[in-house]
């Protein structure tokens, strides 16, 4: 099913595999974004588009700047320069809650389950536009009770879909790591987002739960949401993404459909180091050999000298 989706119906089938390529219908467009920490350039992206209604996988070695890019896009970090838009609306300099209200919701690499709130309360927090969240109206339960019931119904529906309904009344802090990932994803859906950004949704999750998480991510696409996710597991990336963006040292070094990404030379170099597979020429072999011999000769000479010195030393 996912393979079929990407091969036949993917709106990205005619898009060329090159960095910064234009997509037919981008939801998020990033331009000239840089973020430096002291002298380290953490993110430097010239142009990047995320296709609407597709799953885009963001991969790259550790320290490539994936999470930093996530933080910038969702307002959790401030860029040094650059512009990025969602549906044409500029997102730069917006605080995180404003970004979320526009419909761009994220999850975190280290799950943020609200431990001392019940699972149901965790879910209900996710709904946006709640009248009872204003301090004055909160004092008058009549103002928000009706809406609260709707929110609760929606939360229960989602909890059932994510198979957390039996945990409804438990503190979220009692859930296992995998269940927390599920809860966090379900909670993000409570806000009925347009874009879901998942930071390593599968990290620390057992294989059985991974499958169910994957199905949920695919579900998001079926419902018309745009999904961007960071992941290390290449099998997962190949399985669910329609498009893959590869980052290394803060830059986007490649983007392409998932089937062809592992053939990309830049990508292999980024993961395994440049020239790792270039065969040595005869001259190079000789050079390496000569260097090694020179080192050995120098060591022997030093040893002999030390022995001579010891022999000359009076006892």
């Amino acid at each position, binding site marked *: 099913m996912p393979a079929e989706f990407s091969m036949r119906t993917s709106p990205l089938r005619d898009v060329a595999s090159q960095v910064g390529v234009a997509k037919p219908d981008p939801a998020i467009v990033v331009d000239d974004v840089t973020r430096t920490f002291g002298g380290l350039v953490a993110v430097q992206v010239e142009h990047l588009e995320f296709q609407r209604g597709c799953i885009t996988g963001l991969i790259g070695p550790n320290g490539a700047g994936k999470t930093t890019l996530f933080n910038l896009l*969702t307002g*959790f970090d401030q860029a040094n320069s650059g512009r990025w838009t969602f549906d044409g609306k500029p997102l730069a300099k917006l*605080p*995180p*809650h*404003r970004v*979320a*209200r526009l419909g761009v*919701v*994220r*999850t*975190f690499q280290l799950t*943020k389950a*609200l*431990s*001392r*709130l019940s699972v149901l*309360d965790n879910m*209900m*927090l*996710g709904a*946006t536009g*709640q*009248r*009872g*969240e*204003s*301090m004055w*109206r*909160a*004092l008058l*339960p009549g103002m*928000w009770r009706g809406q*609260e019931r709707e929110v609760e119904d929606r939360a229960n529906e989602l909890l059932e879909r994510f198979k957390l309904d039996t945990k409804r009344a438990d*503190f979220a*802090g*009692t859930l296992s790591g995998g269940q927390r990932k599920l809860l966090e994803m379900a*909670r*993000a859906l*409570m*806000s009925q987002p347009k874009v879901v950004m998942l930071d390593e949704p599968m990290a620390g999750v057992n294989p059985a739960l991974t499958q169910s998480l994957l199905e949920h991510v695919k579900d998001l696409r079926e419902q018309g949401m745009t999904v961007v996710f960071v992941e290390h597991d290449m099998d997962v990336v190949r399985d669910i993404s329609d498009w893959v963006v590869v980052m290394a040292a803060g830059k986007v070094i490649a983007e392409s459909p998932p089937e062809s990404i592992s053939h990309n030379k830049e990508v292999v170099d980024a993961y395994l180091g440049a020239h790792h597979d270039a065969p040595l020429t005869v001259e190079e072999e000789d050079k390496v050999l000569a260097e090694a011999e020179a080192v050995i000769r120098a060591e022997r000479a030093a040893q002999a000298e030390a022995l001579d010195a010891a022999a000359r030393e009076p006892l």
Partner: protein
Amino acid sequence: MQQVLDVLIISTKAFFGPLAVFYALMAIGLNVHFGYTGLLNFGQIGFAMLGGFGIAISVTTYGLPFAVGVLVGLLAAVLFALLLGLPTLRLRADYLAIVTIAAAEILRLLFRSVSATPITGATRGLSGFSGDFYALSPFETSARYTILGARWSGRELWVVSVGWTLVALGCLAVWLLMRSPWGRVIKAIREDEDAARSLGKNVYAYKMQSLILGGIFGALGGMIYALATSSANPDQYQSANTFLAYAALILGGTARVLGPVIGAMIFWFLLAFTESGLVELTGADGIIPPEILSSTDVAQIRFVLVGLGLMTLLIFRPQGIFGDRREVMLDAR
């Protein structure tokens, strides 16, 4: 036997007394800050001082009506919360803690400085502002009433009735707020600010609302204290009071509506019980000889004993009286 009864009567009076009201109101405020929102406010006494001096300065220094004094006190608390919150609430929790404790001390030193004498009375403080308040009393202010063996003056009864009414209304407000969606956001901020932000909640605004609300409770407490003592003196508002209010809150149980109230009552009951008990025991016909404990040391030793009691409580019942042990233990993971 009579002595035991006397000790119990004195302690029971403290259980309902104006000091218990003062600490209950301060602790309700701290419960909103620390128990529900996770804000570490170590300057609650500063809010109380603004409440007390709000009335005292308005009435005694400027001759304004009592009601205006109450409004001035509340407004000052709101402004103080804004002043403290604006620069610190965007930062981590510890910054607020440092700023609040410093600000409360600055305020106290400012009020007691010689140059402030025309307004605050400096170290002598202000008095003569509670007349309008006691004029409203339905009890005969000079008469004595005997309740449960304890003797209360009409003034005491009036200030305590107003005080406990305020405590009841405060508890009602906190209960209503914390079961609403607003309370859910507040508790979510305590658990993880970034999670609340990622779900579209304006964390900064909510923290500010919480700081103001809790500060208003502190100011109300300070007003009751000033009215009960009929004087406002900067040195009554030492930072130690904030920590005693925290002790009362933790004793009762944080993030529980009645926790701070019951905590404050029990705290003052215990202080009065150990004090009057020790006074009896070290007195002329007491059983503790003066070589071991003289009656002049009682005032200090009672805090030692209550402190030991609190430590025992935290070891065996870390959630306080009303808390849920499972909830407290979640943090230990």
